[in-house]
């Protein structure tokens, strides 16, 4: 049973489009479910504030869905855009684009749900600061979208760069690796950034005077949580743009694929871990305002140490790409 090149590309684009949209929607749905659950709790404790809570939920959801809309855009582009002259490498490139966008949207979708939910709960607890809470929630969930944006950049690069002059044999694996690297690494960073943002909304509801310090600590924590995603993006760019010499050997293909998988999975854990650390730091900055400096310092050191495994993964990936 043999197919021609055009058929292979078609198979790849359809599966990639499906993957991108499916995973993207799952992330957003999980986030919205979390929001709805906490909004329920808030509504039951203070039904007379239902207007404010609904308003906040609507605005929060509109922002939280951006990651899913990125996925939608990439999926529709994959499905409807004319692929141009068919060459076999295109199939691998579009499949990688779908994987990157699909996985990348999960983390941001889930992550943006945390601040939205906590803000709904917070409005029920402290209705006087609902404006500040909504603003803080929006900043937090907008920052959560950066890993999804990274994934979209990689997906678009994979779709629109012309690979026709590249040799097929190791490049197909490099492109798949590039997609997996950013896509998987974005899961941890997106969810981790969301945890920090959620804690900041909770903290502001508890102690409205702390808003300045809490927002700053949240942004610093989120920025450090994005580091694994940045490493994933770095590996992706290297895999996309470096020219691998042609070689039919299986090991030449497995090296870049292994590099991508390594960085992708290696970014999940540290991203989540950084988010957990940032969550508690932000929570306690809100309760213990005088101690902001000490908490931020400990958070940064703790996050830096928990990132070291992502750095080992990056080192192994770089060795796989450049040394082997």
């Amino acid at each position, binding site marked *: 049973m043999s197919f021609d090149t055009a058929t292979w590309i078609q198979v790849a684009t359809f599966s990639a489009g499906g993957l991108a949209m499916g995973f993207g929607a799952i992330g957003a749905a999980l986030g919205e479910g979390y929001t709805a659950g906490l909004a329920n709790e808030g509504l039951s404790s203070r039904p007379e504030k239902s207007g404010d809570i609904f308003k906040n939920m609507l605005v929060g959801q509109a922002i939280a869905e951006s990651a899913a809309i990125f996925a939608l855009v990439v999926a529709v582009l994959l499905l409807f855009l004319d692929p141009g002259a068919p060459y076999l490498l295109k199939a691998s490139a579009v499949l990688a684009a779908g994987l990157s966008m699909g996985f990348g949207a999960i983390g941001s979708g889930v992550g943006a749900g945390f601040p939205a939910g906590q803000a709904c709960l917070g409005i029920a607890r402290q209705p006087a600061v609902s404006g500040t809470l909504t603003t803080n929630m929006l900043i937090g969930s907008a920052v959560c979208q950066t890993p999804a944006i990274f994934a979209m950049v990689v997906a678009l690069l994979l779709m629109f760069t012309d690979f026709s002059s590249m040799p097929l044999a190791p490049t197909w694996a490099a492109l798949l690796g590039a997609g997996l690297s950013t896509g998987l690494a974005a899961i941890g960073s997106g969810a981790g950034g969301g945890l920090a943002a959620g804690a900041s909304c909770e903290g502001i509801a508890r102690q409205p005077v702390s808003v300045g310090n809490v927002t700053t600590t949240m942004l610093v924590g989120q*920025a*450090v949580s994005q580091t694994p995603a940045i*490493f994933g993006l*770095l590996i992706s760019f290297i895999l996309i743009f470096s020219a691998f010499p042609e070689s039919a050997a299986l090991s030449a293909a497995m090296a870049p694929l292994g590099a991508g998988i390594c960085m992708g999975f290696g970014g999940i854990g540290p991203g989540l871990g950084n988010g957990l650390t940032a969550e508690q730091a932000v929570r306690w900055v809100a309760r213990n305002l005088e101690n902001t400096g000490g908490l931020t310092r400990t958070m*940064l050191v703790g996050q830096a140490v928990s*990132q070291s495994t992502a750095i*080992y993964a990056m*080192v192994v990936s770089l060795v796989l790409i450049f040394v082997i």
Partner: protein
Amino acid sequence: MEELGKIHQLVVTAFGYELRFNLEVISWTWIVIICLLIFGYIAKRNRSIVPGIFQNIGELFIEQFYGLTEDALDKRLARKYAPLICALFMFLLFCNILGIFPHLGEPTSDLNTTLSMGIMGFVIAHYVGIREKGFKAYIKAYFQPIFFMMPLNVIGELSKVISISFRLFGNIMGGDIIVLVVSYLTLSLVLPPFLIGFFFIFIGAIQAFVFTMLTLVYISVQVK
């Protein structure tokens, strides 16, 4: 996109080996060093009770990092190592934000710079450890908790150098590449200035602080 990851090198052949000098990185590093020296000179020139703007900035750095060092080490060691920590932070901070100027890049986006800083911190930490605890106690620490953990303890120590230097390198280099690729994709419209602000100033400051803190922590772990 061809300039991605390309560095101007001067290759000198000597004794059958090829010595490579990254000329751009060396010149950037010297720019940072000269800037810091000028800053130090200006800050120190007119010392007074009411500080001028440069003296104020200098005092801010020194006060902060002296306090941090005193927290991590004790008073006696802090007098000795606070200048190192403070200078390390200022150097890395200047390095990381040098890239916002046109035609200049960050010396820290080259692995050689960060790795040499990391190795320097590593050597200093172990030197302090041997000096403070004595050679015997220092060696003994490797055989904790049981003696055959020795190889893993050694690898653990060495991996600290890797993690500290690759973290800084990865962040700054990643920022560089992201800015380059995004400017290429969006034809340098609107977005790159914000990205440059985020990566070079915000992330650069955070990572310089993290690097300095970790060096300090490695020293304090050796001492305690």
